């Protein structure tokens, strides 16, 4: 700005004046982009009119008229298309949510194994990582689905594993705790315990930090979490949950938890693939904490556990969390590959609708909006986190 005002004199010709040049560039680029959008738009409207394509969202209330296998929430083909889309969204979020939790656990374990001082363990982890990072996810999903989970025997010849777990062409049947009629009291007490514990933690921690009085906030919070469910247990009549085993009734197993072959292979594939990337993130994060930090912490007399708790983990987490969150986003986006193995999530449901009734553009807009919303949410969280840790740094 300063340089501009210094050069401001009558003898600069118009075509050398930087402000004029910028304005011209601005107008030209805006014109080009506007022209491109208009061109595409006009072509589109012409083609849409020719083919009689819908350009509105009124069809959302029409009956969907296609079945969705294993719809998680109650669904039948007479429900509206908007509701079918919601079913797809729920299935996407379900598989991504569980996948994220499992991949984080597996990935962290493998990342730690990679850093192990045990040579063999570290090499094993390396082999796992290199195998999964160098093959396409789709090939991994095909390997898990078509030759393995899609080829399980039929119900009469179920494979029985200890547990008991039954594997057959209809799915994987597990023993699973089932909520009893009075069980909600216990679940509610669990939730209340957690909320109370979080409130107590922050309140008491603040008191300790401000007044310097020992409040034992850690011990108190943990105690709240543990004691509340005990009360809930007695209030709900002593048995809120009961383990339920799948039992063969007629032609099928009833009870317990049923996982479809599609869901299982998608979950295993996504989890194992993402875990390899998360393992690298964890390894890089821990290695980013300089060795001097650990030595210095040991030198001031912290125990190994304290070194980990107060020195290594807080610093490693700052490096780990941003790439970790983008791995979570990758996993969610990759769940769209479910289309190829017949797990009907949001993209598959959208694709059926497109093929059925030529609603390509509105449906595409909806599918893309879902993924964009997830990705914008992720980057908002990331930015918030980055600002926070930067503040801590100074």
């Amino acid at each position, binding site marked *: 700005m300063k340089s501009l005002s210094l050069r401001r004199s009558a003898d600069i010709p118009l075509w050398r004046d930087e402000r004029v040049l910028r304005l011209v560039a601005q107008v030209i680029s805006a014109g080009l982009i506007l022209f491109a959008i208009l061109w*595409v738009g006009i072509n589109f409207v012409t083609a849409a009119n020719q083919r009689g394509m819908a350009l509105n969202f009124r069809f959302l209330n029409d009956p969907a008229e296609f079945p969705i296998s294993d719809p998680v929430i109650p669904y039948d083909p007479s429900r509206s298309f908007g509701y079918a889309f919601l079913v797809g969204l729920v299935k996407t979020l379900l598989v991504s949510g569980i996948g994220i939790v499992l991949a984080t656990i597996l990935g962290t374990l493998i990342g730690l194994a990679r850093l192990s001082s045990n040579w063999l363990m570290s090499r094993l982890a390396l082999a796992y990582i290199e195998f999964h990072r160098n093959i396409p996810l789709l090939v991994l999903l095909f390997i898990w689905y078509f030759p393995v989970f899609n080829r399980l025997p039929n119900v009469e010849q179920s494979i029985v594993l200890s547990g008991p777990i039954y594997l057959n062409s209809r799915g994987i049947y597990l023993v699973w705790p089932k909520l009893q009629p009075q069980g909600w009291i216990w679940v509610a007490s669990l939730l209340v315990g957690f909320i109370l514990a979080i409130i107590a933690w922050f309140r008491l921690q603040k008191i300790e930090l401000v007044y310097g009085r020992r409040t034992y906030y850690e011990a108190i919070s943990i105690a709240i979490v543990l004691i509340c469910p005990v009360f809930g247990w007695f209030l709900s009549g002593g048995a809120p949950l009961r383990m339920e085993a799948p039992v063969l009734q007629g032609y099928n197993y009833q009870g317990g938890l049923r996982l479809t072959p599609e869901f299982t292979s998608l979950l295993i594939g996504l989890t194992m693939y993402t875990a390899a990337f998360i393992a690298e993130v964890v390894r890089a994060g821990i290695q980013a904490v300089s060795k001097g930090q650990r030595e210095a912490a040991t030198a001031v007399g912290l125990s190994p556990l304290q070194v980990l708790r107060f020195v290594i983990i807080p610093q490693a987490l700052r490096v780990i969390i941003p790439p970790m969150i983008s791995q979570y986003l990758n996993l969610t986006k990759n769940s769209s590959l479910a289309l190829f193995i017949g797990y009907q999530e949001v993209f598959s449901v959208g694709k059926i609708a497109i093929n059925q009734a030529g609603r390509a553009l509105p449906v595409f807009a909806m599918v893309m909006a879902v993924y964009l919303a997830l990705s914008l949410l992720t980057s908002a969280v990331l930015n918030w986190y980055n600002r926070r840790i930067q503040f801590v740094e100074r």
Partner: protein
Amino acid sequence: MTTLSEEIVRPPEPPGLLRWMRENLFNSWFNALLTVFSLALIYAFLSLIIRWVFFQADWRPVAEFPLLFMVGQYPRNLLWRVALSLGVVSFLMGVSWGAWGKLIQSFAITMGAMMAAVALIPFPIRDLSIGLRGFMLTAVALIFAGFYIARRWRVVGKWLLLAWTITSVLVVLVILPGLENSTFLTHVPTTLWGGLLVTVILAVGGIVLSFPIGVLLALGRRSSLPVVKGFSIVFIEVIRGVPLITILFMFSLILQVFLPVGSRFDRLLRALIGITIFSAAYMAENVRGGLQAIPLGQIEAAKALGMNGFQINLFIVLPQALRMVIPTIVGQFISLFKDTTLVIILGINELLGIGRAVIQASPEYVRLQLEVYLFIALIFWVFSYAMSYSSQQLERALGVGER
């Protein structure tokens, strides 16, 4: 005292096997436990794999159609055109190795090693005739021939880049598809192309075509013109926010709707456009990383010399930034190479699509899906691993992070 000083002076002996094992495998009870656990795991896994691979698996679907996996249904009597393309590319690879040295070295060597490995497979395979094996070895020889020619005549990089451009255009637009109404180069529609050929064309084409777009978008994102900046940001974030498969599907379905009525697109070209646009957004972010690493002082110095914005970018910022992001671009290429599997949604028979087609070809192969998909995984693994290894060598040769 003397013994002590002698001990200090003497260099430590290289640890023996026993000592190494004690230090790395059994230095605490926990580590000893881990070692035993890992050994058991390795034993169980390896014995299972070896027994399956050599005794239980039935490799017929793979062994009977290796050419199908390589080039799809490209007419067998016109295979010389694929061979010619591979030969020219091998030769240019060798010349580049000679001209650019360490930057290309490990890529050229791994390419040669892979072709030699195919030529020397120790089993008789019907498709893999003596002629084909001989050609593979010739291609390896061409790499070395190119290397010596480049060293002997001092080939200049500028001309080499030109040669690469002309060759790729010729190969992809003339040699492989042929010409309409030609008797010598008969037309081969892209629907017949397949296998590794299509995978490589899509991945290389995608990365090369997305490079200029990505650079422009990266510069646009740093531009001070709000319209350009806004457009770049929206484009990059939208494309990066949605899965590749939705972009590919959209291009297969509604690209024709967006363009003037009547314009038709080849299926492979549609896939390539989708991949290019997807890749450009990621390329832009990678290049932006390099741009941000250029110290502001350099730009100010260039301004002080009286350069305009265009000159600063072209002569000062980009040469340094692009050099810095080469390893990242190789990484992006590897993931793009893996992502090309998704084009089977458009019905293109790339490597994985060929696998699916082979399985559906005969009812007895339905049992053998594991063999086919593991074979495909192996091919992808070898290529990706070779590239990431080469990329590490490249990083060392470039000295990224050392200057």
